[in-house]
């Protein structure tokens, strides 16, 4: 009888410990032994993240928020937009599939960037439901953006390699500092567009990856962590640092892109809706491409 009682109680005991192990996140890849072993290394990424988030990120986002609207307004008032004839011939630039991809990406960015700012200034909005909804929208917009990245890279990467035209373009800041209509050295994409491509595409992938790490938090990432030779908590800290810093850059370039397409070059946005660019606009702003099209007899 005693034997059975001992057996029964030890069975019960082992079950309670099983319960503890199964619910106590016992050797969770994030919270378990790995976290304890990461405590002595806190001064590296832990302290750096704390310092940056406390002292610098909100200042960076504040600059990112106002830089382009202020600079854009000044540019608009002093120099003004470029206006090209919309009655001339049109040049076909973007196929239907690429237009859909680009506009899906644009839509997702119109969600990602404002909601990102709302989260970064969460205390300004008092936290709670509104900021939480923004966080969830930010997460939902991510897969939409993710779908469009590879098609855009594959379709455009050849046209995005920097060349001598871009050096000349940079020297005259794309001719945007004057209203003169002088042919500007640029292929299908100018240096500014190329810069945006390299920030938004490889940068966008990095934003997706770092965002996904923060979203999934404690799924088992030990292979990734081992690859980089850091603990999972440090991986998350690095992700948060990259996501914030790169987020400022991406948000700034995004606003520049919107300003150029929707305001500074009147009607340029139509090329991503209909697929056609104005011939005069191409001849001036993309003169190398225009010359090439002429040589090929396409215009």
């Amino acid at each position, binding site marked *: 009888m005693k034997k059975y009682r001992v057996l029964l109680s030890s069975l019960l005991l082992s079950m309670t410990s099983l319960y503890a192990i199964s619910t106590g996140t016992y050797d969770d890849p994030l919270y378990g032994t790995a976290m304890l072993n990461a405590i002595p290394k806190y001064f590296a990424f832990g302290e750096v993240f704390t310092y940056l*988030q406390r002292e610098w990120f909100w200042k960076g986002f504040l600059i990112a928020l106002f830089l382009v609207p202020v600079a854009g307004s000044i540019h608009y008032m002093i120099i003004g937009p470029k206006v090209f004839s919309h009655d001339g011939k049109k040049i076909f630039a973007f196929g239907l599939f690429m237009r859909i991809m680009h506009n899906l990406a644009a839509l997702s960015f119109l969600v990602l960037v404002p909601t990102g700012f709302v989260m970064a200034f969460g205390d300004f909005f008092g936290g709670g439901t509104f*900021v939480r909804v923004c966080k969830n929208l930010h997460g939902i917009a991510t897969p939409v953006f993710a779908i469009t990245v590879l098609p855009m890279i594959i379709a455009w990467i050849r046209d995005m390699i920097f060349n001598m035209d871009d050096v000349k373009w940079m020297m005259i800041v794309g001719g945007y500092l004057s209203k003169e209509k002088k042919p500007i050295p640029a292929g299908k994409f100018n240096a500014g567009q190329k810069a945006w491509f390299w920030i938004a595409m490889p940068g966008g992938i990095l934003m997706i990856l770092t965002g996904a790490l923060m979203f999934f938090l404690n799924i088992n990432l030990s292979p990734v962590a081992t690859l980089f030779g850091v603990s999972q908590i440090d991986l998350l800290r690095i992700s948060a640092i990259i996501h914030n810093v790169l987020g400022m850059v991406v948000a700034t370039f995004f606003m520049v892109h919107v300003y150029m397409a929707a305001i500074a070059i009147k009607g340029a946005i139509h090329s991503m809706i209909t697929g056609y660019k104005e011939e005069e606009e191409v001849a001036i702003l993309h003169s190398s491409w225009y010359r090439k099209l002429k040589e090929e007899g396409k215009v």
Partner: protein
Amino acid sequence: MENINSRLKFYCDADRCIECFACVVACQNAHELPVGIARRKVVTLNDGVEGKETSISIACMHCSDAPCSQVCPVDCFYIREDGIVLHDKEKCIGCGYCLYACPFGAPQFPKDGVFGAKGAMDKCTMCAGGPLETNSEIERHTYGQNRISEGKVPVCAAMCSTNALMIGTSEKVSELYRTRVLARGESKEANNSYLWNVAYNKQSRKGLTQ
């Protein structure tokens, strides 16, 4: 908070902890925490290595400089007079920043938002509830029991069968621990707790050597 030694602190005597998980289960049960959330964890280092095996019960340390409160984008933390670090779950957006800033991995996140997004952060409250009306049903539901307001010891420490897990003002706890170490008669110094050594070691945490 002039006297830093009057802050409430936990201390896990690693020489006494027998890795029984009672504190973990007691906490989960008393506060009816969702599955997957453990405000307190027991972690064993060097498992099975004779003479080197150490088990520690770890939860929020209620830091005096509380890094979590420095990074929260919605500023939802508050630190009580007695040093207990609490936060407002109605403001919290579940961004995870407090976890990245925390040296001890205390903040945890139920996956209850849309598509399994992180919900409002949950961590050890030192059994002191939250900003809602003290001992109201809604406080109990949101933050768990408020035992401190009733003058009770936090349930994890109350449950500890070996009294490894101690809680009290830092003065009281260190006095108790010093007595123990002396009584053991070992040549160990009074700062031989593994966790406190790594946590409050000058090298590893500059700001926190009090």
